[in-house]
């Protein structure tokens, strides 16, 4: 219906290689971009800074995790630790007087260097053991960050992040911070969209499917695993730094604990492995779900006139979050991205539903 393929003829190589060959997709992207850029004009500042902004930054982070998990097929249960490394190095660089742009790149590079440590575990083992060793590295990193005063500023300490400046312009308004997050998210998205059709992206997919088979056709799986970990850690580090710079404004070790790693993993799984639009859905779903649940539960209690204890109210959204992960894995293992894909495929051949693509 919407997504017509009729009348689209690729008469040049450029047209054949276009990111979005179907006009409906292009129009939707343009529409969404306009909506995103104009968001500060029509959106309540509270929603903008407390929902839209973290959603965009977490989407960028989830895309980075999707690179390693969905594309290269390597486990990473220590993603939050890598984000934390980026965040801490950016804040320390900033406090030492380094401009924010350079601090961001520094954050990405330190995170990538540490990320390669994770990669060395990946070169030795895979599957379950890789998951467990990255989990252990997450605990080790957590411990190091919170117990070394030079990094965290002492146990239980909060490190204030200086206000961010881009190219000499101080960015303090909600809209300005939002645009920074939007720019970073778009940059990562464009990178990921293009990754799919580069030699690197195809090599990663080959490694994911079977590393021995990849080696047989001449893909050095050793090298590409290393590249995948370094790239996704770079994205993680910068995302962590952007998250601190635009959203939290202060950094503590708890912001990057093992629970956050699992949350990032849940974003990718709920969104869909290897799906870019899925990462948007997944990040939004996981971030907004607890708030939505709280509203829903208080509506229910108001409706049926029973009251729940404070502790129950505090833990119920968490329990439902766990149940949702379980439910998604049982019902649609490929996540929200796959559901979107199904709808799109259905509309593509509508009303001829019996046409097999």
């Amino acid at each position, binding site marked *: 219906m919407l997504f017509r393929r009729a009348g689209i003829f690729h008469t040049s190589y450029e047209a054949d290689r276009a990111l979005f060959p179907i006009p409906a997709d292009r129009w939707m992207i343009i529409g969404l971009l306009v909506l995103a850029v104009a968001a500060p004009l029509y959106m309540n500042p509270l929603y903008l800074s407390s929902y839209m902004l973290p959603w965009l930054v977490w989407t960028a982070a989830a895309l980075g995790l999707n690179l390693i998990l969905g594309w290269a097929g390597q486990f990473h249960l220590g993603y939050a630790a890598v984000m934390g490394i980026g965040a801490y190095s950016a804040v320390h660089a900033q406090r030492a007087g380094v401009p924010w742009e350079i601090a961001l790149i520094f954050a990405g590079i330190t995170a990538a260097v540490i990320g390669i440590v994770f990669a060395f575990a990946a070169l030795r*083992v895979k599957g379950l053991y890789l998951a*467990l060793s990255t989990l*252990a590295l997450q605990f080790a990193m957590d411990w190091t960050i919170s117990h070394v005063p030079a990094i965290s500023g002492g146990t239980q300490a909060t490190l204030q992040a200086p206000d961010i400046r881009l190219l000499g312009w101080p960015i303090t308004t909600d809209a300005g911070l939002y645009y920074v997050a939007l720019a970073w998210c778009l940059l990562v998205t464009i990178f990921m969209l293009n990754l799919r059709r580069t030699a690197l992206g195809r090599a990663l997919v080959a490694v994911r499917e079977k590393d021995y088979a990849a080696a047989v056709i001449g893909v050095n799986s050793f090298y590409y695993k290393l590249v995948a970990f370094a790239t996704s850690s770079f994205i993680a580090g910068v995302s962590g730094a952007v998250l601190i710079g635009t959203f939290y404004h202060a950094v503590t070790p708890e912001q990057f604990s093992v629970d956050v790693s699992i949350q990032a993993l849940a974003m990718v799984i709920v969104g869909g492995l290897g799906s870019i639009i899925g990462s948007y859905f997944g990040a939004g779903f996981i971030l907004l779900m607890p708030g939505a649940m709280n509203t829903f539960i208080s509506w229910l209690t108001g409706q049926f006139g029973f009251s729940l*204890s404070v502790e129950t109210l*505090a833990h119920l959204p968490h329990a439902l979050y*766990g149940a949702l992960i*379980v439910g998604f894995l049982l019902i649609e*293992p490929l996540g929200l991205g796959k559901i979107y894909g199904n709808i799109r495929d259905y509309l593509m051949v509508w009303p001829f539903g019996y046409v097999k693509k």
Partner: protein
Amino acid sequence: MDLLLMLESAINGGLVGLMYSLVAMGIVLIYKSSSVPNLAQGSMVMLAAYVVLAFAAGLGAPLWVAIPLAIITMFCIGVGIERVALRRLAGRPIIMILMMTLGLEIFLRAGAMTIWGGTARPMPLGISDDPLFVGPLLINRAYAIGAAVAVAMFVLLALFFRTRMGVVLRAISDDYTAAWSVGISVERGVALSWALSAVIATVAAVLWASVQGVDQSLALLLLKGVTVAVLGGLDSIGGALLAGILLGVVEGLASIVLDPLVGGASRELVDAAMLILTILLRPHGLFGRHDIERV
């Protein structure tokens, strides 16, 4: 360094380690039968502790009645988890299975909190606090009893594996497909292994709860359990027992040496380091079966 102090903390560490291996045994049992790494074992321990308390407080039953009731309940919960969540994932990529157990972990932990609340409460087993001296060494009575129960559980499991049902489980763990083709109901065997490890989780829960009380921190035993299970070899129950002792002794000694240097809480670091080193140096653990990957 005082040699006596070292010896004392090594022995107490070994006893604690045996209690860790109770948690690890549950993980090993499930991994052996179905190759599912159960990352929800920690929260199963926590849930079991709450269930015991619920029977004790809710029904007013004495603890020696509440514990068997809780064991029966957890047996059913174990079967239920396998039936509802894990059976449909059989044969799926390992990432889905890992994520499923992580989701279960969150669900069980937060679910228990939702029902019973997060305030810590004691579980008095009636173990006296009187110091127990063996020669000049001070031994913690609760740890000693816990270690004894862990060894007893191991012996019970070893005996169980000699019964008919135990042989079935061994066949399943040895070769899934071959067991199927000679008419063994693999699903029932896997469900039984989940139920058994839920029962072991209950035993671990009672012992740990008497040491540190019942609250959310019981779920943190997962890291210790996983470390012990991997160190001993994920498919070796005896390995879990020995690895538990090993990890406990290393933790005990390391906390004496490291704690003054880094300002406490070095145990978690030791766990993580042991886990990473095991995986990097000897992924199949001390006694695990070395799998050969076919290309």
